[in-house]
């Protein structure tokens, strides 16, 4: 590894000085120290890093977060409120036992990270920081290493059967200066099934890592919403490892946010696995900046696996959307079916969509494709709707929802998909006033 440049070391020292290594038992301390060593070897991302070409990491690097006002949602019904689910609440990145349900459900073990970390022999030891470390190659992800080194809270979930209901991680934002770091580990044993829901703005600045190990024949469904605080910032990572005939499906809806960088790293190690990663983002830069970055890295390292990336962004008033998506097909990963789509709807000429699709293929019997488009609203459709009496603003929103529908269609559970669509519709309505 090349020597790390001095400005990066300085930035890192400043950042580290504001952080404390959490208490933990032997294995957790070892994992945290190893993560810190990884981080020190790479330094924090700088403006010249290719992987950060579209997104400036400065505000994520800074020792303290920029303050972010707490959004008033007017007391609307909570996201996923209609879903029968087990709620686990964090306020500014700290577990809130009183607001959470008891961490008990048939077929599933849930513990706080701190408890697991204090236990000498624990299953999480084989995953905590392990999947993150695997995901550092071939591209460095310093904020994920920082997370492993310093996250004091989070949950570890082990699923042995079919979870009776979804687990919902709820991230409330209470303090304007909160700097939250959460690390979750999910282990799905062979044939297990879990739906994980996440929602909420979390904090002024949020760093989250989710490590997911999906064993043979297991299925992991993930739906999250990130919103709607305008000034919040977030760097999140998902590291998933997939076994034979396993399924991983993740969907994210992002609305508002000064800076969001969502990295998803999927490693397909077992044959016949399926991985779908999708996202819908909607941003308006009129009052506060909006910058949303989806960075995805899917590695095919087994035979006959299918991966899909579907990302849609609606941008207006100077909003910026970025997509970096890579499909890496390793030697021997024959019969790979890899697909990648990233599209943006630019509602004006001030908004920007930056995109870098990449395919790297070392097997000869594969089908991989990618498509990226960037377009304005369909004037014909807009006129048609208006000619039927639909006011321009409503007609535009209908077309916005229609544009995002492809990504939302990636959510398998119809009720949850309907919740997402209904909520978007509601937010658009309120925005119109």
């Amino acid at each position, binding site marked *: 590894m090349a020597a790390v440049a001095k400005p990066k070391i300085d930035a890192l020292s400043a950042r580290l000085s504001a952080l404390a290594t959490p208490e933990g038992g032997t294995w957790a301390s070892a994992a945290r120290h190893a993560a810190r060593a990884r981080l020190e070897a790479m330094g924090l991302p700088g403006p010249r890093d290719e992987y950060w070409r579209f997104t400036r990491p400065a505000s994520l690097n800074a020792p303290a977060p920029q303050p972010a006002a707490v959004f008033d949602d007017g007391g609307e019904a909570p996201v996923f409120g209609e879903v029968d689910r087990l709620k686990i609440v964090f306020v500014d990145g700290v577990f809130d036992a009183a607001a959470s349900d008891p961490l008990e459900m048939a077929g599933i073990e849930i513990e706080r990270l701190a408890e697991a970390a204090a236990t000498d022999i624990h299953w999480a030891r084989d995953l905590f920081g392990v999947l993150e470390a695997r995901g550092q190659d071939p591209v460095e992800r310093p904020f994920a290493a920082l997370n492993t080194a310093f996250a004091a809270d989070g949950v570890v979930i082990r699923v042995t059967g079919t979870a009776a209901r979804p687990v919902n991680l709820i991230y409330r934002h209470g303090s304007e200066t909160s700097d939250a770091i959460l690390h979750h580990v999910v282990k799905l044993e062979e044939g297990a099934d879990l739906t994980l829901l996440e929602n909420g703005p979390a904090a002024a600045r949020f760093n989250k890592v989710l490590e997911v190990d999906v064993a043979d024949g297991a299925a992991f469904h993930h739906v999250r919403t990130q919103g709607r605080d305008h000034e919040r910032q977030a760097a999140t990572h998902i590291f998933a490892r997939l076994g034979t005939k396993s399924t991983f499906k993740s969907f994210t809806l992002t609305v508002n946010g000064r800076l969001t960088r969502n990295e998803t790293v999927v490693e397909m190690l077992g044959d016949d696995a399926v991985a779908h990663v999708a996202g819908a983002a909607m941003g308006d830069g009129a009052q506060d900046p909006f910058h949303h970055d989806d960075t995805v890295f899917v590695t095919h390292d087994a035979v006959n696996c299918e991966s899909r990336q579907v990302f849609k962004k609606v941008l207006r008033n100077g909003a910026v959307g970025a997509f970096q998506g890579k499909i890496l097909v390793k030697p021997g990963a024959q019969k790979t079916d890899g697909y990648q789509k990233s599209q943006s709807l630019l509602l004006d000429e001030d908004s920007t969509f930056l995109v870098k699709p990449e395919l790297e293929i070392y097997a000869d019997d594969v089908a991989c494709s990618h498509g990226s488009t960037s377009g304005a609203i369909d004037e014909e*459709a807009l006129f048609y709707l*208006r*000619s*039927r*009496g639909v*006011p321009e603003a409503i007609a535009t929103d209908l077309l916005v929802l229609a544009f995002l529908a492809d990504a939302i269609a990636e959510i398998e559970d119809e009720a949850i998909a309907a919740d997402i669509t209904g909520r978007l519709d509601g937010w658009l309505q309120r925005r119109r006033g």
Partner: protein
Amino acid sequence: MLKINNLHVKLEEEDKEILKGVDLEVPAGKVHAIMGPNGSGKSTLSYVLSGRDGYEVTQGTATLDGQDLLAMETEERAAAGLFLALQYPVEIPGVGNMTFLRTALNAQRKARGEEEISAADFLKLVREKAKALKIDADMLKRPVNVGFSGGEKKRNEILQMALLEPKMCILDETDSGLDVDAMKLVSEGVNALRSEGRSFLVITHYQRLLDHIVPDVVHIMANGRIIKTGGPDLALEVEHNGYADILAEFA
């Protein structure tokens, strides 16, 4: 009902005049037809009346029951009772037909200060209107016009007309792309809507549509003007002799 006075229109993008002084009046309860050769300005007239972008009115007026259409937004014209059945209805992937219909109906009601229709009443209303046009549940569920045949698209236009109950309906070459059976079905739908308070302006190339939707008055349009006006016989004359004779008469 509809009054058009010395309407001059040019394309916004190029300095090309398309309508060169159109005068037309359609009284309440009447069906007027406009026939004319390609490029005479028939479709342009329908677009200008409905407020489509890309045209510039340089002179003249167009009013609907005294309201200045040209000063209104497209959606305001619709709420005022103007409806244009398009020659090529637009496909809108991702927007369900039912959502589209309900949104349109409620938007118009709202604009007129009326209550929105309840979901249950709306469903009942749509089913009733759709049945007469042989529009099945599947067509209502699908995205607007996506995967519809030419005939299905036109029937969907008439369904919208039946639901929105406009007072001034413009049909722009509704017969294009229709087979005989579909034309009959569409015409029946239109005829069912004929009433004392509702007027129609039927734009067509061919006389055959006017066998089904019998007009009170027929206008011939050429080179951006109405050059001749008569009864239904005028359409038959065109059918037999083509436009050449009439055009020669006014050359």
